[in-house]
């Protein structure tokens, strides 16, 4: 806020200090104090990140003393716990990327269609009942989803495609996608509903149908909200653990083929965390390096998302 700048041209015998309008110190101090507190709350998220990064970096340093960064990034095998240890993180990243991609291929179209349907087509009552029910999908313990993928979805898929292995990224990804639907649909529905009515009216007045209005006007106008929803969905998919751990086979395969089994970063981390490894061993340290990599990846995604949202934010 700019301080008012007064060019005191003809300041005639103006009372200097102590008049009734002067700033109150007590109130100002209190306001500053509260602002400080709120700032601390907001900054706490940064502090958390720093703490996480600090832990990840310090714990993974011993690993990088033994494994060169080049190997870490270029080796195509990830067998840190085996006798013949390889530390090719790209293997896990490929798994993470594939399951995430499959999940998003489910969640983004379905979530978006649901959002459009709820915001532009459905009645108020339907929307208000369905939305919270759908949000329950996000609350189902992921172990349940994992078994659902393994015991229901995989056999179904095998009926269609008999060569599908019992553990594969496809069914894990599909189920993960369903789990993420509410993240995408709820947040984008909110964003679409926030698009002011006069924009819609402008489109209807041109003779557009609901669908045309939704796709051509409402969605572009809600772009930043949709982007936020998608990013939230991506983040959730990238970080998801149990579904993949149960249904995708936990095989560190360097492959982008969703029909094969693979392991992801987060699944690897949780597995090792609860396993029998000594916590001081090099093998155990790999989870921190993997976590760090994951964090860097999501960071890149988020910066990209932030930039995109800023660039395409529509003012209506």
């Amino acid at each position: 806020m700019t301080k008012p700048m007064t060019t005191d041209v003809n300041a005639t015998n103006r009372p200097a200090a102590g008049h009734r309008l002067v700033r109150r110190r007590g109130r100002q101090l209190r306001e500053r104090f509260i602002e400080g507190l709120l700032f601390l709350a907001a900054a706490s998220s940064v502090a958390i990140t720093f703490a996480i990064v600090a832990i990840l970096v310090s714990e993974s340093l011993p690993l990088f003393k033994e494994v060169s960064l080049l190997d870490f990034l270029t080796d195509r095998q990830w067998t840190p716990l085996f006798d013949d240890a390889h530390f090719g993180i790209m293997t896990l990243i490929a798994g993470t990327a594939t399951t995430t991609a499959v999940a998003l291929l489910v969640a983004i179209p379905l979530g978006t269609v649901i959002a459009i349907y709820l915001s532009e087509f459905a009645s108020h009552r339907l929307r208000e009942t369905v939305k919270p029910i759908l949000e329950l999908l996000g609350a189902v313990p992921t172990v349940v989803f994992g078994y659902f993928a393994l015991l229901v979805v995989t056999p179904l898929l095998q009926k269609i495609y008999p060569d599908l292995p019992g553990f594969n990224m496809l069914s894990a990804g599909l189920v993960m996608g369903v789990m993420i639907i509410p993240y995408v649909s709820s947040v984008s529905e909110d964003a679409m509903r926030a698009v002011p009515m006069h924009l819609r009216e402008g489109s209807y007045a041109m003779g557009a149908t609901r669908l045309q209005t939704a796709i051509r006007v409402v969605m572009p106008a809600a772009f930043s909200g949709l982007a936020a929803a998608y990013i939230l969905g991506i983040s959730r998919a990238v970080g998801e653990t149990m579904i993949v751990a149960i249904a995708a086979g936990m095989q560190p395969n360097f492959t982008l083929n969703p029909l094969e089994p693979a392991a992801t970063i987060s699944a690897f981390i949780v597995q090792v965390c609860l396993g029998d490894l000594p916590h001081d061993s090099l093998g155990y340290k790999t989870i921190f390096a993997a976590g760090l990599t994951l964090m860097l990846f999501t960071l890149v995604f988020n910066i990209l998302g932030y930039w995109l949202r800023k660039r395409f934010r529509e003012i209506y």
Partner: protein
Amino acid sequence: RAEEKIVKIDGSSTVYPITEAVAEEFQTAKRGAIRVTVGISGTGGGFKKFCRGEIDLTGASRPILKKEMDACREAGIQYVELPVAYDALTVVVNPKNDWLKSITVDELKKIWEPGAQQNVTKWNQVNPAWPDQALKLFGPGADSGTFDYFTEAVVGKAKSSRGDYTASEDDNVLVKGVTMDKGALGYFGYAYYAENSQKLRAVPVVPAAGKPAVAPSPETVKNGSYQPLSRPVFIYVNAKSLDKPEVREFVDFYLNQAPQLVAAVKYVALPEQAYQLAKEHVAKKKLGTGFGGESEVGVSVEELLQREGKL
């Protein structure tokens, strides 16, 4: 309020069912006067807490390793190592598998050794008598004590294994995997086979050339004929905690009740004599591990208990 009497236990999820059973019975017996808590942080997580002095006992599916011994020494934690049961690693196949009547350790090695990765993908590549069927492998994750033991016993070197198999910490997942695939072969703890013996078939193992194949069962494990795949699981007791009457009482109760409770949760109890020896160790507070920071295959529990303890 009065000083809480509480026994804190953590560690391997393999040992957990036994410890849980003991804890439950113990609390009932004491009418709640002593409280017991059991966690499942894994053997590694358990030792980490144990060596920080946060818990009184930790369950371990493998012996304490060098690094953990160092950590404990640094923190001044001394401990008593007590084997409490056998876990027989069971090699299982799909019931539809009609060719595998028994398997030799060599064949297992051919299947699981690191060199087999990408190379041995068909049954007939292991043994020409077996069909030209895709070989699908299932086993515990490389972070587990089971994996360490199996690789050491079969391949000859701990942690030396092929990587292209379906790994899971949850043995039920492995059970599901093997039941879903005719060409599957997997290994995991005996309890999971025992509970699913209709859906799976355990394969008798030939320990060495010329010896008869032995199927896993409580008897064959107990009498030492199921080799090399039966291993002991342990609890480690903090020596200082052992001075607390409630911990001492609990450990005694553990060793006394073990034969019944271990069987009840589908593990294999040690020979009676082994429990006697263990009780003596507790009484004498015999400190240290019998392994010296390395895991070993094929040691008998009795022999182990005779060894000099290292800290």
